[in-house]
């Protein structure tokens, strides 16, 4: 009788030791107070923000770059004139703005003094 009880106790302990972690891992989140180790790791993963990185400021017209540039005296001659409405008139319609931020600390400028710019 003692042997049977010991065997029963051992098998129960073994089942609990092996079965509980497996059962815990397969549980779906939010169904109770207990939380599996997998869920604990998933918490951090879910909180990571989704970051979308833009390639550059002129991605919408990058296809023009490959077509050549008649302006250049070199071999690259892309067709860049289509998307230049804001630049082409330069000072005519869009005078150069005053620099909004401090200039870079390159040793040429006094710290924090942005250039004042005017186009006539």
């Amino acid at each position, binding site marked *: 009788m003692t042997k049977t009880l010991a065997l029963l106790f051992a098998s129960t302990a073994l089942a609990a030791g092996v079965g509980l972690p497996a059962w815990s891992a397969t549980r779906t989140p939010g169904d109770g107070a207990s939380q599996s180790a997998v869920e604990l790791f998933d918490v951090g993963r879910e909180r990571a923000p989704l970051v979308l990185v833009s390639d550059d400021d002129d991605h919408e017209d990058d296809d023009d770059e490959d077509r050549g540039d008649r*302006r250049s005296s070199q071999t690259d001659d892309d067709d860049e004139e289509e998307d230049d409405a804001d630049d082409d008139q*330069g000072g005519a319609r869009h005078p150069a703005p005053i620099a*909004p931020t401090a200039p870079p600390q390159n040793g040429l400028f006094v710290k924090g003094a942005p250039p004042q710019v005017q186009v006539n």
Partner: protein
Amino acid sequence: MKPVLAALALTASLALPGVATARPVTLTAALNNYGGDGAYLAIYVTDPKGAYAGTLWVSGGKSKYYRHLTDWHRATGGAPAEINGITGASVGAGRTLKITLDLADALIDAGYTLHVDAAVENMRDSPNEIAAPLTIDGAGKPVRGRRYVASLTYDM
């Protein structure tokens, strides 16, 4: 009393180098009537050895065209860190760009040279359009450009 005066002199000598190390300089670039779109300009400085020292201003907002400012782009790669806060719109033909900035005194009469690279869409690039030594004597004297810039003057 003497130790106090000595300490005062020492602190003054340490503090003074940080004061009055710059002067206001106005750069005026008048463009020719070259009959094209707005010009991209890079205004930058090289040291006495001819090495790139830094950028003062870039006219033209689209970074993909910066490679046409050939010499400047070769030195900087058009890196945003070089030009953050010192860019504006391109300058139209026949117009005048005037920039006032506080330039470090150490650049004046010390062998530094002011350069302008220029580029216009569908027209030839003009690297080193202007190269003018930064000197007291050169202040107020217009320097002619090669292609797009009629003259560049710096006043201090």
